[in-house]
């Protein structure tokens, strides 16, 4: 068979592409829902027009983005059955439950109340309308939990037993499944990272306007809000990431070894963290690298004299456990994705701290490059999120469910390479075209800036709301 029509390869590309694409919209939906809810709460409390302007302004960006998140999300759910039917058969009894929970408990909530929020401005009392955006926030965050619990099962299968007769995994405890240590650690790490992404957006947008000296009364508080959100969310993301690292070393030691391209088991000072490496980190040749001694030991075990297992060692162990095969992920991908995730995350926190210092007491920096850096916050925070997921999922390979099912065994046997090639091309073209429209619309909404303060009713002093329609 033609190599390019390999259903496994094509299905992996399609799943990777559509998932990464979907996850460009998810962090913005989660983070911006919270942002909008906070601005609207501030408006309800203080009745200051600028908070209402900010609510509408970021609300508009939020909505352009939500539509894409919703429709690309359906693809994700359908794909398990379409492209990974043997995987679905094997794990459905366990993996399906959190997905169904997500739908019943969270997704309905999000989809219903978002409609009420968009179109309810002139139909609901002020406080009930505020409630609808908070319920959207709760829905989106709960939704994330169930999805991460499902994903955690693939990283660290728990709460199951193998039914030999049916040839599948079966759930033994829903509680254990939902409290998978990987899920408990990945949830805060992911959610706070989502807040970093939306903080990045707010910083970019506010800086763009402030650099042009416009919309000062709304964009100054917005910038301050974004910078603080970035610092706080950044610290929390880091702390949660540290916990996730510990859980990962426990559940998937190979992933940590692959993150560092550590071929030989190392202890203490030798368990160093390389900031970057010249040459290929394939364990054969290393031309030059900057290393921080003890750091890998600390990240992996929270002690300075810990031992971190190397790839060669783990590979040998896995061959004994699971039979002959290559159990090593693609090292250059995991190595660099891990570094870019951490590096970009830390860079954003640095930008935010410096930004808070430069704008302290209402100061406004004069140097152009300062603003340029701030304006680029958003795309790079999104990139940090994406490479983080590349690391998590590529580091899981060659497993689909760690230790239980290999990726190659999960693909749909009944779907031909031609069919998958068709769908891959269709999704690539469609998603590409939509990305162009999406970016243009968001840029247009951003550059237009907030609308003027809404008209106040002469008698009651209340802000009037225009009717919202499509």
């Amino acid at each position, binding site marked *: 068979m033609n190599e390019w029509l390999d259903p496994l390869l094509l299905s992996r590309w399609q799943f990777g592409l559509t998932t990464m694409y979907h996850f460009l919209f998810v962090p913005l939906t989660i983070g911006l829902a919270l942002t909008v809810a906070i601005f609207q709460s501030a408006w309800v409390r203080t009745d200051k027009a600028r908070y209402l302007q900010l609510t509408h302004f970021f609300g508009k960006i939020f909505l352009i983005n939500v539509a894409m998140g*919703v*429709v690309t999300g359906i693809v994700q759910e359908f794909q398990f059955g379409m492209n990974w039917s043997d995987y679905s058969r094997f794990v*459905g009894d366990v993996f399906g439950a959190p*997905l169904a929970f997500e*739908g019943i408990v969270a997704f309905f909530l999000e989809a219903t109340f978002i409609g*009420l929020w968009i179109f309810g401005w002139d139909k609901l009392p002020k406080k009930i309308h505020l409630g609808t955006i908070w319920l959207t926030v709760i829905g989106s965050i709960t939704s994330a939990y169930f999805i991460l619990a499902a994903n955690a099962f693939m990283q660290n299968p728990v709460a199951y037993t193998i039914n030999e007769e049916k040839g599948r995994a079966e759930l033994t405890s829903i509680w254990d499944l939902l409290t998978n240590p990987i899920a408990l650690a990945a949830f805060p790490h992911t959610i706070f990272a989502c807040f970093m992404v939306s903080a990045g957006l707010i910083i970019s947008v506010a800086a763009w306007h402030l650099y042009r000296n416009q919309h000062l009364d709304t964009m100054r508080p917005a910038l301050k809000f974004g910078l603080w959100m970035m610092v706080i969310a950044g610290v929390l993301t880091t702390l949660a990431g540290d916990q996730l690292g510990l859980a990962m070393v426990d559940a998937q030691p190979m992933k940590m070894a692959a993150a560092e391209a550590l071929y030989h088991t190392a202890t203490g000072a030798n368990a160093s963290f390389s900031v970057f490496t010249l040459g290929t980190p394939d364990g054969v040749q290393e031309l030059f690298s900057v290393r921080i001694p003890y750091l890998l030991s600390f990240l992996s075990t929270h002690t300075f004299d810990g031992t971190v297992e190397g790839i060669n060692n783990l590979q040998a162990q896995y061959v004994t456990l699971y039979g002959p095969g290559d159990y090593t992920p693609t090292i250059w991908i995991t190595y660099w994705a891990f570094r870019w995730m951490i590096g970009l995350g830390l860079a954003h926190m640095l930008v935010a701290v410096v930004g808070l210092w430069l704008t302290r007491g209402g100061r406004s920096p004069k140097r152009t490059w300062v603003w340029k850096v701030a304006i680029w916050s958003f795309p790079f925070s999104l990139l940090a999120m994406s490479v983080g997921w590349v690391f998590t999922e590529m580091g899981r390979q060659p497993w689909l469910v760690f230790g239980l099912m290999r990726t190659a065994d999960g693909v749909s046997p009944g779907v031909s390479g031609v069919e998958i090639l068709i769908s891959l091309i269709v999704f690539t073209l469609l998603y590409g075209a939509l990305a162009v*429209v999406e970016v243009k619309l968001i840029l247009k909404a951003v550059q237009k800036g907030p609308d003027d303060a809404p008209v106040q009713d002469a008698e009651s002093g209340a802000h009037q709301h225009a009717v*919202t329609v499509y």
Partner: protein
Amino acid sequence: MDLTILWFWIIAFMFIGYFVLDGFDFGVGMSLPFLGRDDTDRRVLINTIGPVWDLNETWVIVAGASLFAAFPEWYATMFSGFYLILLLILVALILRGVSFEYRHQRPESVWKKWFDGLIIVGSAVPALLWGVAFANIVQGVKLNANHDYVGTIFDLLNPYALLGGVATLLLFFVHGVVFVSLKTEGDIRMRARKLATKAGFATIVAAATFLAWTTLAYGTVVSALFAALAAALLIASFLANLRGAERLAFALMAGTIGLVVLTLFSSLFPDVMPASNDPANSLTIANASSSTYTLGVMSWTALIGMPVILLYQGWTYWVFRKRIGRAHIDLAVH
């Protein structure tokens, strides 16, 4: 009660929810070229479903996830077997969804025309293909011992399945047009009533033929009763629309669609995906379902969750109960 039976009917309930609710969204989308004479008309039409299409569409996500959790084999076989059909449905749903949101973002009429077109196609394609898919399930498809579909896409486009597609397409179309008459005011409301009458004849013929074929070829006593009732409600809805009883006509259309889904599911039972080539390869509620423990956990979730969901979704419809007219659109900011 056997939990597999319970879940078979919960899945049926979820697809009823999906087809009754997103069904009229499809119909409203398809009615744009017939009822939307100018941009304001088309905006009136789109805004009848503006606040609710997203929650309506969510029903298919929940139905799909529940299918995955309760009947993994069914989910795996159906979704991989109907690969290209589902791809088309996904593309259509994506285009429809973004078009609702993007259409009003720019004033140029070319821009709007493009998204109007995408809404029409994005509504018609799923309306047709969901019927094709479910008719194929009832009819049975070629499955091997691993329950993988071994036919081709052309096997799925057989006369019975295509008739099923035409039937759902027309049912959703009329359902949406009746919904428009219920949710709008002025001229467009009257035109919607007339269009529902015109389309009603063809719909009754197509739906009745499909129901009769289903009953004769795959039916049981129970499914025959559902089919007869579905046909009766459809005709009653037609008459109610003639008399201008919009609420009744809409309720009867919703009932019709629910009963058509019940007809299909009761024809299937206790199979979930019969194998047309070898009955031994058929998927049934017994060999396709999850373990008793998983079904038990899911039952509690659905039992507690669904009433709450129905309550707040019902409230949403109540909040947006007012009719929409051209004046409403002119008031808007953008």
